[in-house]
């Protein structure tokens, strides 16, 4: 036992994180039965929140973990909606079409990644924007879409409004939970170690045998698929499809805001950011332009003064881990202190480099 006092203990979770895991399960269960008690308007807003969480988590997966900042992610949002329109027009059940569409988006993103992932940093960011602009123009050429006039997911109208609302709510909740679970599983597994190694230092990761490009491609396709789901769900909630709305760079602006404010590169941060954004939108969305100015200014200020975001800062300050995806190293002396006061956050692998 004396040897143990000098050997650091490596652990995955903390008491807090085990409580958090139970809390997450309870929250999801409560959300699942919530439509019974909530008004129609609140159900719609909650659906919107779930879509925001998906968008934030997916953009964070790409930028925070893969080191790939894209300002063209609206391309997958728009395509998710567009393919759903196309598939529903071909006679597929509209609800099935939503997910079939996202799978097609994922498939399309694969060949795209072969070219785009060879671009670096800013080139990748704006290259994706060009892809989004071009895709928008091409979708406009489709006669079914009628240019900027747009079209609707008419086949959804066979369901009455109540059924439709609750079904979309559940689909959004299930999609959000599933996508977060996939991301969480990915980050905790061996791929997660590779992802963090790339995030911290790409060249060093490659030198110790991490498959840099393959790992980035996985994140790129996952993000495309997830954002495709979000776009299809957005179509289901709003019914109408106008290319200008869906291929708008504003979607990426929202994603960037959510992730920057929440905490880039932290799993919980993206979720927190989505909730913050949702609340700001609920309270200030009516102020129009000033609201958008505020979002942009907040993105600038956070990137300059609080680049780790709210959650990153909380994590650093208090050593709090609710949903740990990394490992933490703790000196064994602390093991004799079951009160749990001796938490040393500085040794955990989830810490970001500051350079």
């Amino acid at each position, binding site marked *: 036992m004396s040897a143990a006092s000098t050997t650091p203990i490596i652990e995955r979770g903390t008491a807090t994180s085990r409580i958090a895991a139970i809390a997450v399960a309870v929250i999801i269960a409560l959300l699942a039965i919530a439509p019974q008690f909530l008004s129609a308007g609140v159900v719609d807003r909650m659906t919107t929140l779930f879509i925001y969480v998906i968008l934030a988590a997916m953009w964070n997966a790409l930028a925070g973990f893969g080191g790939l900042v894209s*300002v063209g992610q609206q391309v997958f949002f728009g395509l998710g909606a567009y393919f759903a329109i196309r598939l529903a027009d071909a006679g597929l059940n509209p609800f099935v079409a939503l997910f079939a569409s996202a799978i097609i988006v994922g498939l399309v993103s694969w060949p795209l990644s072969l070219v785009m992932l060879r671009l670096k940093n800013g080139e990748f*960011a704006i*290259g994706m924007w060009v892809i989004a*602009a071009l895709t928008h123009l091409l979708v406009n050429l489709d006669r079914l879409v009628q240019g900027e006039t747009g079209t609707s997911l008419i086949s959804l109208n066979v369901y009455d409004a109540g059924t439709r609302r609750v079904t979309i709510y559940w689909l959004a909740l299930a999609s959000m939970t599933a996508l977060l679970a996939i991301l969480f599983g990915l980050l905790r597994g061996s791929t997660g170690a590779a992802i963090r190694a790339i995030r911290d230092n790409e060249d060093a990761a490659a030198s110790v045998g991490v498959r840099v490009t393959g790992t980035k491609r996985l994140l790129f396709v996952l993000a495309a698929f997830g954002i495709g789901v979000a776009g299809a769900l957005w179509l289901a909630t709003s019914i109408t499809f106008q290319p200008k709305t869906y291929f708008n760079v504003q979607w990426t602006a929202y994603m960037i805001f959510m992730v920057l404010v929440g905490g880039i590169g932290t799993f919980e941060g993206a979720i927190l950011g989505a909730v913050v954004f949702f609340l700001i939108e609920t309270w200030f969305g009516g102020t129009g*332009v000033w609201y958008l100015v505020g979002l*942009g200014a907040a*993105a*600038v200020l956070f990137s*300059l003064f609080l680049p780790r975001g709210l959650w990153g800062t909380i994590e650093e300050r208090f050593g709090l881990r609710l949903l740990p995806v990394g490992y933490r190293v703790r000196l064994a002396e602390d093991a004799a202190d079951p009160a749990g006061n001796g938490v040393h956050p500085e040794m955990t692998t989830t810490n970001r480099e500051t350079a």
Partner: protein
Amino acid sequence: MSNQIIQGVLLGGYYALIACGLSFMFSVMRIINLAHGSLAVLSAYALWWLASRFHIPPFAGLLIVLPLMAAIGWALQRFLLERSARGGALLPILTTFGLAIVIDNMLFEQFGADTRSLAPFIGSLSYDSWEWPGSIYVGKLAVIIFLIAVALLGGLQLFLSRTGLGRAIRATSEDPDTSGLVGVDARRANAVAAAIAMVTVGLAGAFLGMRATFDPYAGAPQLLFAFEAAVIGGAGSLWGTLIGGIVLALAQTLGAQVHPQGFLIGGHAAFLIVLFVRLSMSGFSLRGLLHRPSRSAS
């Protein structure tokens, strides 16, 4: 057909003008400024405001706006880019993107959604043309823009190769630490480079306003044009940017011939084709605008 080619080449001059600031900043500071297009539109609005409110013709207005743009560039580098660049290569993308959103929406707040143009304030220049042999009419304004683009690129090239400040900027872009050792003030060199880049952006914004219309959200397409022209032109020299701009404009002209909505599609497609070819041939980077790629340390 030759008429369209000439118009395309002249339009390429405008693209070179808006692209040169973007690639200049990128090659010196390794930052792609996503607010580039929005700043050009800001300059156009400033000139429009001076012209409509104080009856200052746009060409005279440039005497006020260009120094302001230089000051904006200097401040941008000192207060935003310098700080965010310390946080890694990704943060400046986010910072400048946030800045673009702020500028776009402030312009919307101030000037509304109406499209504006500087054409009414430059008299007959906006529609005057010369007749060239073969009954080809070329707009005087288009020729002036092209000539100014060429002069600007040449001037920039001379400045970088012949002046002490230009050499300091080139040294900083090559290796900021080593150039610091031999007495180059990297912070000053970067701030001066940003100021110069913003002057070119201001000029590009002025011509955007004279040759076409603009609205508060016109910055994004201008950014994409600038980026595409810079990438098509590729590494090498500032003259590559001119070639990139001309190729982009010709592809757009060709696209418009094929399909009524093909103007933008043609440009984007040309960009992707060039990108794809360049990537499959080997390593690609915007780097090396100021010096030969073989000498760049990477």
